[in-house]
């Protein structure tokens, strides 16, 4: 028996002249958490909509737990639990009843679903709100509690594939951690998890594999360490330019240190370098700051964010130049939380 629970092959979907998914290939195996990354409009939601039978592909194949999701979407939907990006409809329900309703629709017995709801509420630290009713217009329960409830509704029943679309929006830091622990556990219990997000830093912590989508195309795929590519000892030097200030790292040939990758996002310039060059890099950046050519700089371990920004910027620019990539303001850096400390 194959361990693949989601197989997407050469999936193409157009909306008029716009190609939302352009020959997408994707695979999620049992026990695996796969992150699907991409900016707004990259085609992530279109892909998910086709998996659950809301949209029909123009070309390509989707198999969920061996079921042809294009030919038999109803059976495929039984194999997928989806947490949508929009809130789940739960006005008039308490989180407990909402979770129980979701489990009952998947054929769980009343006793089993009640026990599962209690466990999930405990694990997500939701019990304070478990019996509080959600009211119309966002009253009664906060957005974060509603989001956690929607996550629990997707996670309550054992299904081959769980698709989570931005599950941590509105959720506080402590409960985010709990949620990621459960995502990891769902994978360990045998489910395949497709995690749709634009939050690279969070995804890096939990995923086994990553697929980066840009303008409907897969622009990078692989494990986080493979995608980082530069080895676990690579560093990232981040320069914050003055508004309208010149980029001192341009052209990259003039740099005093060897740079594996260079990405510019608005006022930020991200340089990936080897750990042996750390001292020289700090000295160079300090000089730049003293001479007021840059505002700030940080040095930290290279992250997936650098790779993500590089591959999406490459796709936006359409070309790379001599190992360095430049694409100004092509990405929404505000979506990506900071990880390294400002020096």
């Amino acid at each position, binding site marked *: 028996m194959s361990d693949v629970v989601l197989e997407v092959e050469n999936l193409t979907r157009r909306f008029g002249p716009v190609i939302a998914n352009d020959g997408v290939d994707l695979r999620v*195996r*049992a026990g695996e958490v796969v992150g699907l990354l991409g900016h707004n409009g990259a085609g992530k939601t279109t892909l998910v909509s086709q998996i659950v039978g809301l949209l029909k592909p123009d070309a390509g194949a989707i198999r969920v*737990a061996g079921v042809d999701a294009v030919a038999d979407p109803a059976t495929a939907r039984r194999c997928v639990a989806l947490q949508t990006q929009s809130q789940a*409809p739960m006005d*008039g329900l308490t989180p407990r009843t909402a979770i129980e309703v979701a489990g009952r629709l998947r054929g769980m017995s009343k006793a089993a679903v009640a026990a599962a709801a209690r466990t999930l509420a405990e694990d997500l630290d939701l019990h304070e709100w478990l019996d509080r009713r959600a*009211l119309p217009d966002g009253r009664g329960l906060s957005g974060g509690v509603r989001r956690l409830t929607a996550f629990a509704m997707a996670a309550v029943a054992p299904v*081959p594939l769980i698709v989570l679309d931005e599950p941590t929006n509105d959720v506080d830091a402590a409960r985010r951690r709990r949620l990621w622990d459960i995502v990891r556990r769902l994978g360990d219990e045998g489910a395949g998890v497709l995690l749709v997000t634009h939050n690279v830093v969070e995804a890096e912590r939990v995923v086994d594999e990553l697929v980066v989508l840009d303008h409907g195309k897969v622009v990078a795929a692989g494990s986080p360490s493979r995608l980082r590519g530069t080895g676990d000892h690579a560093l990232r030097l981040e320069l914050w330019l003055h508004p309208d200030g010149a980029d001192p790292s341009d052209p990259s040939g003039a740099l005093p240190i060897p740079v594996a990758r260079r990405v510019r996002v608005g006022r930020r310039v991200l340089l990936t370098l080897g750990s042996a060059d750390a001292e020289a890099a700090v000295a160079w950046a300090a000089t730049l700051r003293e001479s007021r050519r840059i505002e700030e700089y940080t040095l930290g371990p290279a992250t997936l964010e650098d790779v993500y920004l590089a591959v999406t910027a490459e796709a936006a620019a359409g070309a790379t130049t001599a190992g360095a990539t430049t694409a100004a303001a092509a990405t929404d850096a505000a979506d990506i939380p900071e990880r390294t400390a400002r020096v």
Partner: protein
Amino acid sequence: MSEATVVATPTRVPRAVPPRTGLWTTYATLLRWTMAQIGAILPLIILIQALLAAGIIVGFGFLIGDVNSPAAQFLSTGTPTVLLMVIGLVMVPQGVAQARTSGTFTYQRALPVPRPLLLLADLTVWLVVALPGIPVAVFVAWLRYDLSYSFDWPLLVAASVLTAVVATAVGYAVAVLLPPLLAQLASQVLVFFVMLFSPITFPESQLPDWFRAVHDVLPFRPAADLLRAGLVSGGQGANWQDLAVLTVWCLLGLTISVRALVRRS
């Protein structure tokens, strides 16, 4: 990697395709879900129906002036139909339009349930919401005109349910056919048409011939006549042609609604 290192590999046995949940369990669960969403506003809706009934029965009475007994009876026996149509053609499209805008419609379509059951649960809840309008209207008319009714219970129940289903199904179809904003606008136009241009609260004889012919194929006049026959028996009873027209509209509304729920764009 040293030989002593142990790597915990994730489970590689995929879960099997889950079995289909029983239709009754699915329907009952969906009903519980939908009812919870509307339940909180149910008393408010019944109050609005009472006010609307009073508005039609008392207010139209002022408009007409000297209301004689047959006109009062016509007005009063037409009011339940107006209330059912208002729920079906105004509240249902607005509810569905809101569900489409908020993402609820999409969420429900992604659930592992036969999609026609989503419509069935919605229809059931709207019936529960709409049907109290009939006793409310009868009560208001009795208070105002002291009318005496002679109920044909089987016909009254059948006509009420059929009219409520027609109104709800057509309202649902309007909401899934048109973009949300347009659906809300259309529902406003429809309510004016039902209240002012349909022979529900006034006799058909007051309309020009061509407009009468139009109303022979629209659901409003047939629904009103059927309900009236159930409220004041001893008239002509049920007209089979009216029943056929309502059935066709009902099937049309249901077909369009189910198609919108089932089809993938």
